[in-house]
């Protein structure tokens, strides 16, 4: 039923696009424009220029401050709503670190909490119409994933010494297979930061681009613009979910990698 409705809607969009489109209105959809980095003061985007990236990163920091510091400022035994959310977030990530990375992973909790809060706030701020989504940029997510990769690798060698290489030596496999598995493990280890960063940026970027494409349809369809608007509503709801889930996935993968560094045995 839902599928049928979807196909009928899609057909209507196409047909109406053909029939009702104004003669000369080229479908002016630029779904990637929203990701442009631009200086707010005018001029070139140099390293220290104040850009829309600066603005929305600063807003993310402000939101983290509002939720975690202002929200918990009353230190109430019976918490207010904001304090409740701050405590829930704390408990959620703390338990994740403890469960996935183990007891000795808890001292990395502030770093993991920093990653989660930043990605969560950036994702949600990006869902505000006309906003700029910092986490849709591979430059940002690559830095985040690279930080995790290097931290985990360094912690792994510092904690276990050469024993950390046991991560690549699958001792439960038959001896003949181990060198092959070691190569596969090694490749997968170095692919981690790539998938870790592209997963986040790709999901966020794709969702926003889809929204923008539907918005372009809505502008072009005239009478039938209600169809893409329905679609935008649905995709937006999905994007709200994705905003949280991608922050969650990034964080839990960080915990999993940390677990590998702390306990490299399979």
């Amino acid at each position, binding site marked *: 039923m839902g599928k049928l409705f979807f196909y009928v809607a899609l057909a209507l969009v196409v047909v109406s696009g053909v029939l009702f489109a104004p003669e000369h209105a080229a479908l002016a959809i*630029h779904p*990637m*424009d929203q*990701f*442009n*980095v*631009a*200086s707010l003061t005018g001029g*070139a*985007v*140099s*390293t*220290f*220029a104040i*850009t829309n*990236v*600066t603005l929305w*990163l*600063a807003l*993310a*920091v402000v939101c*983290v*401050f509002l939720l*975690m*510091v202002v929200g*918990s400022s009353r*230190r*109430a*035994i019976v*918490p207010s709503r904001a*304090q409740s959310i*701050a*405590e829930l977030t*704390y*408990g959620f990530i703390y338990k994740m670190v403890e469960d996935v990375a183990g007891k000795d992973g808890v001292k990395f*909790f*502030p*770093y993991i*909490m*920093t990653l989660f*809060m*930043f990605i969560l706030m950036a994702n949600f701020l990006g869902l505000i119409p006309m906003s700029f989504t*910092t986490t*849709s*940029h*591979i*430059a*940002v997510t690559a*830095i*985040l994933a690279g*930080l995790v990769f290097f931290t985990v690798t360094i912690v792994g060698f510092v904690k276990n010494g050469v024993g950390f290489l046991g991560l690549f030596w699958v001792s439960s496999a038959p001896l003949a297979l181990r060198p092959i598995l070691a190569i596969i493990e090694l490749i997968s280890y170095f692919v981690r930061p790539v998938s870790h960063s592209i997963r986040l*940026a790709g999901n966020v*970027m794709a969702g926003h681009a889809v929204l923008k494409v539907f918005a372009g349809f809505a502008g072009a369809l005239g009478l039938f613009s209600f169809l893409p608007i329905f679609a935008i509503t649905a995709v937006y709801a999905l994007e709200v979910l994705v905003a949280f889930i991608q922050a969650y996935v990034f964080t839990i993968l960080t915990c999993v990698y940390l677990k590998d560094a702390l306990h490299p045995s399979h």
Partner: protein
Amino acid sequence: MASNTQDAAHGAAESAPGMPQLDFSTFGNQIFWLAIALVAIYLILSRVALPRIAAVLAERQGTITNDLAAAEDLKAKAVEAEDAYNKALADARAEAQRIAAETRAEIQVGLDEAIAKADEQIAAKAAESEKAIGEIKAGALESVKVVAADTAEALVTALGGKADAKAVAAAVADRMKG
């Protein structure tokens, strides 16, 4: 190819074809500000927010534990109080029964005494009465003797005889013995 270079010349602000994500000229800017943002968030969280929330959570846990312990305490006290109440009730009941029994015994003693006294009095009264009755009886017999003698004398005189008082009295006494 030519349009690409043209667009690059116009800068990233204009809608360049391709992904702004791959415009490496903006990477330095993004990475610089990201580093600042991450350090800021880390400092906010690790210096202020996380210790505070941890303290609040610990305090709440402590309060809950204390309250539970206090509730347990109060419950124990309530049970104790109920036991004491029940014990006091049982004691009072036993005491009441004891007092009632004592009182009953006392009353019984008094009653027995009174009954004995009354019996004595009744017996004394009965003896007195018997004596009085005996006296009255004796008095009456004497009177009957006198009356009989008088009557016999009068009868003898009336029949023209001469009544001998001694003989009459003897005759009456003889008859009375009958």
